[in-house]
């Protein structure tokens, strides 16, 4: 299980990356942590002619928490993000989700940006991006553009990133509400495996315990990780009464329409989608209600 031969270059700046991508973007592949890419290369499921290592570009490794959003560099490692207290306060869902991503060793090497660009339908980070409406800043030799998560994920292992573009940073919107909570869970066969189904929710409540803002989403067995903002909007104003939750969750599970594989049938996944979404809505609601 050895990769096919390829040419290699280590980039020292984003300009250098953009320049190389301009020249041979179609044949080149960017590598950051490589935790998803390298096994695919080892199995020769993918064989880039040229590998560009962007993982040594310091400018791509940062965490900043700003008023409206938090910003993370594309090559910030998952373990660094999971350990950052300020980020956890600003965007708690990120840390909650990262606990489900792989294992210690893969989080030490893997980057959040890599996970987003790889866009595995069962991966956790794309789900978080969808629920929060993260903005992906893509850079090419012609400049930068920002793509919202809803437009970024186009299909399994497919994103809106063009062959001449490199993900530069991710902007994670902050919710300004005082009483805000989030929750993330998943069911897999073993801990650390890709989720059969992952579910997450983020909710803000007012002093009376009524939801003022809700979003939630699902990943696993689907085409792409999905958020359900329209369904979530139906919960605004509610206190997550059983009947409305049931109705929203069932609609979500139907819309999610998961596929089947060796480990879970579509029916089982649909059931998990409904159960886990209910649980995450309730957990997020409780977290929000517990905010002082």
């Amino acid at each position, binding site marked *: 299980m050895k990769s096919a031969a390829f040419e290699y270059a*280590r980039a020292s700046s984003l300009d250098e990356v953009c320049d190389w991508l301009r020249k041979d973007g179609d044949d080149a592949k960017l590598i950051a942590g490589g935790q998803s890419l*390298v096994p695919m290369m080892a199995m020769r499921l993918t064989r880039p002619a040229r590998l560009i290592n962007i993982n040594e570009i310091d400018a791509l490794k940062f965490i900043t928490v700003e008023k409206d959003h938090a910003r993370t560099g594309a090559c910030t490692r998952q*373990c660094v993000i999971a350990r950052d207290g300020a980020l956890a306060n600003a965007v708690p869902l990120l840390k909650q989700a990262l606990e489900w991503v792989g294992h210690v*060793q893969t989080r030490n090497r893997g980057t959040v940006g890599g996970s987003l660009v790889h866009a595995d339908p069962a991966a956790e980070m794309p789900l978080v991006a969808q629920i929060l409406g993260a903005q992906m800043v893509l850079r090419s030799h012609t400049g930068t553009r920002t793509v919202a998560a809803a437009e970024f994920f186009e299909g399994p292992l497919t994103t809106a990133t063009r062959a001449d573009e490199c993900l530069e940073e991710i902007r994670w919107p902050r919710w300004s509400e005082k009483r805000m909570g989030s929750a993330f869970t998943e069911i897999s066969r073993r801990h650390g495996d890709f989720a059969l189904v992952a579910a997450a929710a983020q909710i803000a409540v007012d002093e009376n315990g009524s939801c003022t803002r809700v979003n939630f989403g699902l990943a696993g067995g689907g085409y792409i990780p999905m958020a359900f903002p329209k369904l979530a909007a139906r919960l605004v104003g509610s206190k997550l009464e059983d009947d409305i939750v049931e109705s929203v969750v069932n609609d979500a599970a139907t819309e999610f329409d998961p596929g089947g594989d060796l480990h879970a049938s579509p029916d089982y996944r649909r059931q998990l989608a409904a159960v886990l979404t209910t649980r995450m809505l309730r957990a997020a609601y409780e977290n929000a209600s517990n905010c002082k």
Partner: protein
Amino acid sequence: MEKLYPVAIEVNGKPRSAQVPARLSLVDFLREELRLTGTHVGCEHGICGACSVMLDGDPVRSCLMFAVQADGHRITTVEGLTPADGTLSVLQDSFCEAHGLQCGYCTPGMLIASQALLNATPNPSEEQIRDAIGGNLCRCTGYRQIVDAVKLAAGRLAEQK
């Protein structure tokens, strides 16, 4: 002829350099080029953890890296856990005392994972130990004596302080 690329890595405190094909994995580089055969190959697709090494102090899977990516970095392998005087480290000795291994194949990865845990968390709970070795598969032990060994090591290290 396949193009070769220079790599210079500090391995177990010693500078090592070579010219290697870009596709050479870090674990193959360590084993075949440097003859540091303590690090093992189990699955080559990032699941079993037998190839765990520390990269700049953090445990990573060396089958999920190309050697060229490690250029300029610091690697610690199981050979580097052994004190210079040839004795066993506290963790290694604890694995012997608790018999936290059988065939020895996953052991270097287990040691790297648990040493990294103890470096960061001197007094880990059983849950933290299991989480730290959760990405390392062992087929011999059922993990029980490995967990015991890490607990034993943590206690001994605390006594030394």
